[in-house]
């Protein structure tokens, strides 16, 4: 279960997120909301990428008190992934394999499924936005992840890649993983069954 308690996040005097208490059981959840409502900020909070006030726990592991144990369980794919342009896709994937503690080359099947095999030796600076997004999704699925935070995973990728993504989500859900997916685009309900949809209204998460 994911627990958020007394979460506050402000930029200067402007409060973006204010959640008193929020609990989420395992499943697949769709986070909706217009531009600037705080979806990415919420994801960055849960991913431990930005400082905030309050407590975040996943499966009774606290983000602030057990930062490494918590981060070992979660994976965050950003809406607009930013990686060093001077390294190759292989460099990045090797690093993820190393930091996630999985044997080298275990992610080859992910690379093949997303059709990225031919581009992994190239430097990331030469990637198109779609290729960059696919690379970030490959990295997100490396390791034994229990909570996936996918921020706008469908933007810039082609239909084939979207189908691969849906199938990966289904496979990991069957293993017991939880997904928080933010998307402006409608999720294809024929491909993916969402347990619930939430929206950020007045800085708080509310069920749609």
């Amino acid at each position, binding site marked *: 279960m994911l627990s958020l308690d007394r979460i506050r996040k402000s930029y200067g005097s402007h409060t973006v997120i204010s959640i008193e208490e929020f609990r989420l059981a395992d499943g697949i959840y769709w986070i909706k909301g217009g531009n600037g409502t705080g979806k990415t900020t919420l994801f960055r909070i849960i991913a431990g990428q930005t400082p905030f006030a309050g407590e975040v726990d996943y499966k009774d592991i606290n983000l602030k008190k057990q930062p490494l144990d918590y981060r070992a369980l979660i994976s965050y794919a950003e809406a607009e992934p930013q*990686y060093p342009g001077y390294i190759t896709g292989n460099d990045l994937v090797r690093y993820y394999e190393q930091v*996630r503690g999985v044997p080298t080359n275990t992610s080859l099947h992910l690379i093949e499924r997303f059709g990225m095999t031919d581009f992994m*030796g190239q430097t990331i600076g030469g990637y198109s936005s779609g290729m960059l997004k696919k690379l970030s999704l490959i990295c997100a699925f490396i390791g034994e992840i229990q909570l996936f935070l996918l921020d706008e995973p469908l933007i810039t990728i082609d239909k084939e890649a979207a189908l691969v993504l849906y199938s990966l989500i289904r496979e990991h859900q069957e293993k017991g993983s939880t997904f928080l997916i933010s998307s402006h685009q409608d999720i294809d309900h024929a491909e993916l069954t969402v347990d619930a949809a939430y929206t950020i209204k007045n800085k708080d998460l509310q069920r749609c």
Partner: protein
Amino acid sequence: MLSLFLKTLSREFYRQHLGLLAFAFYLLFGTVEGSQLLNYHLALLHSIAASTLMLAACCVLWLLYALKCQLFVNKQLQLEQYSFIQVSAATVQRKQYISWAGLYSVLLMPVLIYVSLVIGAALWYHNYLNAVIAFLFAIAIVAAPTRFTYRKLTRNLRVFQPWLSIRLPAWTNPQWTWPLIYIWKQQTLMLVLSKLLSFILFKAVLWMFADVGPDVRVAQFGLLAALISHSTLVIMLVRQDAGDLAFIRSLPQSRFKTTTNHIAVLFVLFLPEMFIYAYTVSFDLSAVFAGLSLAISTLFCMQVIQYKSDANSNFSVVCAFTIFVTLAISILAGQLFPVNGLQAIISIAVYNLLFYDTDLNTIRDK
């Protein structure tokens, strides 16, 4: 337009280069006894004004500073937060030239003031050739970067082939080496310039105190000057960490590993200077170890300051100045080990304690 350039580019330039300017100020005014200061500077001005060779040597140094200014502006213009400056290309040509010339005049102010003094001295001693050379040089170092920046902004659709492209053999680069690759591949000119400045300042200190005789403190002062020359590279490393490498914060990589990675990068970056320093102190183990502790603890401290400094405060400026003065005193007092030990402990503790509380967005947007 000029006031906008001054508020953004000029302010950031002086913020980043305060350490270097403070060191230059110290070399010019702090190393000479107070009673001899005026005579010393008059003699220095006379020697530059009287000898074309001496003037040429000074011009090389000033040119290096001008190049640093130009590279700084070039680098800033590539950042997303300075993209608004691209709009200036829409204004009339004359206004653009005046604004850029105004900006470079402010950035080059220390050099232009000294060149003016040299021109005055050359006229006073009737050395009109040197006066003309210095005058033309002053115009050139403002006009050249002005023209270059104007062309860069107005003709930015041209594809330029890199003039320096060194291919490294293909292998999987471990994560700790990524910042080094970044500096090597994407900040090549800045690296070359910083290293050049670093070697020149190191040698300048050795020459300045040549009459003192063999004293390890002179070499340590040289090392301190070389360290200050690396401030821009350290800022580049921090920006890179807060930008393209920010994704690492959501991965299970320990703070200890991140700290050792940073230290390894700084060590490799400063290796050439360390070798020259070791050679200067005749590979005396105690002196080499003292120099190494000075280098690593100071570079890491400079890095931590950048993580903690706010865009709108003078925190980094005050910190840099305090550290510079403290280190200078500790070198003179022969107390480098305890001061560096303390500096290292405080830097590592602050970095690790505030690791997850540092908002990388604010660093990226600075």
